[in-house]
């Protein structure tokens, strides 16, 4: 049976289902809360050259695009001559994988009839990797935990017991971290089974023809989309809070016909703390932003990702050099799309949103008995929270919604069962959306208090407190974030702090920027916003010019 273009289309479609099954297997067996709850994982199929053919649509663009690059590192480091049936490769090297030690990437070479034809790869955020734990306080990556270089997790079907011993001895949760390593390997195995079924059905023995079909179709569609972007050079810059000092992000976007380059020359240098981004993670988020705006309908694969050429000079905060600390690289990474879209806006007006809260306000709460002698157990509580997104050219921003990340929040009722805390408030933050013809999304207000007998610590990793999200085309800035006690006393936006029993932590999450002149906003809409309490009376008058 010869392979027709229709067959290739059907197989391409099937591959998406294959990698979805691969991802589903991982979500259902992983230990890590962020994998199960927030879809903090990635899974995909690669051809034997290391080109990504298909990828599951999961929660985080940071993984999605970073993993696409990682397989070529494996192929190079291990070498085809050392790649055997039954092998499983592994790393958590931030510069070879997805940007921090907590993400473990597992790559399984695929064989058919004894011949190496491709790879399955997957990435997940594990519960613990040793070191200081998940937080920005390390001075070097060595303090952040155990680094597993690119190596074999299994060699011809035999698991590397020394590696397992090493991991077990170096992490706080040996069963769960090692368990997740096995989950990752198992999910590749699930994908492989389904792939082999498909190859039986279509009677093919290699992926070359199919891969070529996918790469060519995707590349062509992407280049066509890029060609529609007016040629030119576009600059944008943005200042965000950073950890110890403000960070300037600078990007130059060059479009020439079907060629598109984004370069971050001019961006601030590295931080002393773990908010630095390896370049791979920066590329992932920059590429995600560009793809959303330019070619959203083209599926993720090497063919559709490669036309976006993205670079940052080594040594800047967006291309951190070894051995920089990188544990909480997501804060800077999540902000990258805002500056990239700012540059693209000049090329493609009326396409991209205003700036948003962007970086998640995740909070890890460590509840500790006020009296250590009380015998009460320690408890850990993790919450994912989002501020407002920027207004769109013809739509308001989304309130309390993650962008560019795609994670979900957890139920407060469920959270209160996990640890001894009361969340007294988690509601929209009135007046925090940037004014505009289209209003920025609102941030949210969260108030947390420890239950009787407990104090709690939390690790602040919050941005957009000093530097709120800016509006576009005359739109106003979103409300800046704030970290304080509910009595109004200020707390720091970064670092570990203690909230004593009886006090309430109050987080005010930033809102998104507005789009267009607020005085052009539909008057009925302004009145409706006022009636709903999305904006205050002062804002209605002063920003929107509403006569009451």
């Amino acid at each position, binding site marked *: 049976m010869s392979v027709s273009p*229709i067959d290739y289309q059907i197989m391409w479609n099937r591959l998406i289902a294959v990698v979805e099954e691969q991802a589903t297997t991982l979500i259902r067996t992983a230990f890590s809360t962020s994998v199960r709850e927030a879809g903090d994982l990635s899974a995909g199929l690669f051809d034997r050259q290391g080109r990504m053919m298909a990828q599951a649509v999961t929660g985080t663009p940071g993984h999605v695009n970073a993993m696409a690059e990682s397989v070529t590192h494996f192929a190079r480091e291990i070498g085809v001559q050392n790649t055997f049936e039954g092998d499983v490769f592994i790393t958590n090297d931030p510069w070879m994988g997805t940007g921090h030690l907590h993400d473990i990437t597992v790559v399984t070479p695929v064989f058919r009839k004894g011949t190496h034809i491709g790879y399955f790869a997957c990435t997940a955020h594990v519960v613990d990797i040793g070191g200081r734990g998940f937080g920005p306080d390390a001075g070097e990556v060595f303090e952040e935990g155990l680094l597993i270089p690119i190596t074999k997790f299994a060699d011809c079907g035999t698991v590397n017991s020394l590696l397992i011993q090493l991991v077990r001895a170096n992490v706080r949760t040996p069963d769960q971290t090692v368990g997740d390593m096995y989950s990752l390997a198992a999910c590749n195995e699930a994908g492989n089974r389904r792939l082999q079924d498909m190859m039986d059905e279509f009677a093919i023995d290699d992926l070359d023809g199919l891969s070529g079909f996918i790469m060519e179709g995707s590349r062509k569609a992407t280049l066509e989309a890029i060609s529609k972007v007016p040629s030119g050079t576009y600059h944008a810059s943005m200042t965000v809070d950073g950890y110890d000092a403000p960070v300037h992000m600078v990007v130059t976007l060059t479009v020439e016909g079907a060629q598109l380059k984004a370069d971050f020359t001019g961006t601030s240098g590295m931080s002393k703390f773990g908010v630095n981004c390896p370049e791979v993670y920066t590329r992932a988020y920059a590429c995600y932003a560009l793809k959303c705006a330019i070619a959203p309908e083209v599926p993720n694969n090497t063919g559709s990702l490669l036309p976006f050429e993205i670079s940052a000079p080594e040594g800047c905060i967006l291309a951190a050099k070894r051995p920089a600390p990188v544990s909480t690289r997501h804060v800077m990474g999540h902000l990258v799309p805002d500056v990239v879209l700012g540059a693209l806006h000049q090329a493609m007006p009326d396409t991209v949103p205003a700036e948003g809260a962007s970086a998640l306000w995740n909070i890890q709460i460590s509840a500790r008995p006020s009296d250590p002698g009380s015998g009460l157990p320690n408890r850990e509580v993790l919450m994912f929270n989002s501020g407002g997104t920027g207004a769109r050219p013809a739509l308001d921003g989304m309130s309390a919604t993650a962008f560019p990340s795609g994670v979900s929040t957890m139920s407060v009722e469920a959270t209160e069962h996990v640890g001894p805390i009361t969340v007294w408030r988690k509601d929209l933050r009135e007046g925090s959306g940037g004014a505009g013809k289209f209003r920025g999304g609102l941030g949210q207000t969260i108030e947390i208090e420890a239950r009787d007998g407990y104090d709690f610590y939390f690790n602040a990793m919050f941005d957009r407190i000093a530097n709120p999200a800016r509006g576009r085309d005359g739109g106003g800035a979103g409300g800046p974030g704030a970290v304080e006690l509910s009595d109004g006393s200020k707390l720091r936006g970064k670092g570990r702090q203690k909230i004593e029993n009886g006090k309430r932590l109050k987080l005010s999450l930033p809102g998104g920027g507005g789009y267009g002149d607020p005085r052009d906003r539909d008057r009925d809409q302004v009145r409706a916003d006022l009636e709903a309490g999305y904006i205050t009376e002062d804002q209605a008058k002063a920003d929107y010019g509403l006569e009451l």
Partner: protein
Amino acid sequence: MSNPNIRVGVDIGGTFTDVALQHPGGLSTGKVLTNYSQPEQAILDGIERAAGAAAIELGEIGQVIHGTTLVTNALIERRGAKLAFITTEGFRDVVEMRSENRFEQYDLNLTLPAPLVARKDRFTVNERVAADGSVLLALQQAEVDAMVQTVLDGGYEAVAIGFMHAYANPAHEQMMAEALRKAAPDLSVSISSVISPQMREFERFNTVIANAYVQPQVADYLGRLVARLRDTGIQAPVFMMHSGGGLISVETASAEPVRLLESGPAGGAIFAADFALAHGLDKVLSFDMGGTTAKICLIENGTPKTANTFEVARTYRFKKGSGMPVSTPVVEMVEIGAGGGSIASVDAMGRIQVGPKSAASEPGPACYQRGGEEPTVTDANLALGRLDPDNFAGGAIPLSAENAHQALHSRLGAKLAIESSDAAFGVTEMVDENMANAARVHTVENGRDIEHFTMVAFGGGAPLHACRLCEKLGIEALIIPPGAGVGSAIGFLKAPFSYEASRGLFQRLDEFEASSVNAALKELEAEARAFVAEGAADAEISTKLTAYMRYSGQGWEIPVVLPYREFQAGDRGMLLEAFEQAYRTLFGRIIDDLAVEVTNWSLTVASVLPDVAKAGRHLTGLPLAPGKTRDFFDAAQRRTVTAQEIERSAMAPGVIVEGPAVVVENETSTIVTSAYSVIGQGDGSLLLLRKGAVK
């Protein structure tokens, strides 16, 4: 004089109102167009027609069982009551903030579904119950009174009340509701601790809001329906199908209409389950394909799989997360946008894509000749010879092969530089792929191997696609039951009276407290029994206890079926073992040394039905003499094959025809591919078996 053996099932769907009348002489069915302004009129017309055909007086009807999609439509179209929502201070926006994520990653212009209650109509009171049910902040009477006044001043028709952790302690919700009922006895009031007593505020609040939103309208409709039935001489009691696959009284349905949302599809699943039992099959996958969507459900040991949360009114390409979550017992289905009317197009990569956009019934597929210009799955089936143009819907809609070819050529073939027959193959393969993939993912998520299932296929489009789907899924046996066009209505007649009562009661297993669980279960049983007694007071009943359990720190529970009896302190080990067994089934392993917790308990009480009569099952038989033939395109073979064409009426029990074959009947055709044979069954079903399958 009414006869308890004469029963009628009525299903109101989006296009048709189906009626199935069961009487001592057999089954009489009918289809009439749904009447949106007066749904009860279509019901009466349908019943009269079916009764007339069976020569039965209306007064003889002993029971009317009803299910409807109208409640779902009211939510989708946002036609509900002027509604206020009262909640705990600090949580006014739970239903607006949703899960804080985007269900589509790459769409910069995504819009999230707006809550059913706008922010200005959402009010808060100062009160707070903790996770363990203790009161952290007591609700003051003065505040209750002020809120009553606010609601009265606002002129609301209905009120939903949802407080934090009310599933653990409903006292504050009850206090608020009583004050409202006292002040305004006619006001519709729904409280979350009654409508959906489960942990997770977004789902629970949304469920109570959905209930309050449709309650006045549904109560009004059901009242009119019962009155009209009485007027026409039908004195029979009326019962409603609920989403969980059982029957409840009209009164319960009027108070808790949110339980009716998935009544139609639940009827379909019960219909399939009945055939699973008749054929002695313990693992069945039901496949229901209509004009716009396809639904898939797992049925094990004759029972459709149920869940306690689902999503209605998806707003974005049927994507998970784009609708409203509702936490009430439901037959669990996967629904995808794939049906006969699904439109095919070419995307930027030159790929054929099918659905979820549908040509619906107006203008319908291009071949209907009603102005539809876009190629649909039905057009592709026609072009491939799988449909008889002169015998579609019993000849009621003449199909134009010319129009189908034209649409396939202009919108697909010309763009891709391929023949329109190749484009047609691409369309059917793509839609079959989409359905197969959804079925596969659903079984994987449930820790099952799809190869071990038998498919039961019904709905207008299913017999055309089911055999190819089985080829793709590695399924060896497929049943096409008779009466498949009105499957849901027939399913209503096979459903037990049942009620699932549930309660959020959070406990870590190492702190398991038998007494509080026993007390809660006793309440659940009393509650559920009372509902069942409304329809089947003297019936023998069965109980099924499910605990929703998880490892500490995990986000989602798994259902663990437990023996229903008084628990002892020492039962911790039994609970752990049951959990581990269920966990292993789903995930293939367990996690040592991690604490286990229970979040919800649910108890289902159901009337026990008589055993289903076994179908005379034939795995082989005598061949028919060759007669008419028809050519169709066999997808697995990638070529057109000459198939035997047989009238369904000729497929008597024990008749076998080897594929390729087409079995034709009034409403649709069953395609038997070259890899399968079809055998007539004692109960009028068709059994398709893969050639060479181990029987």
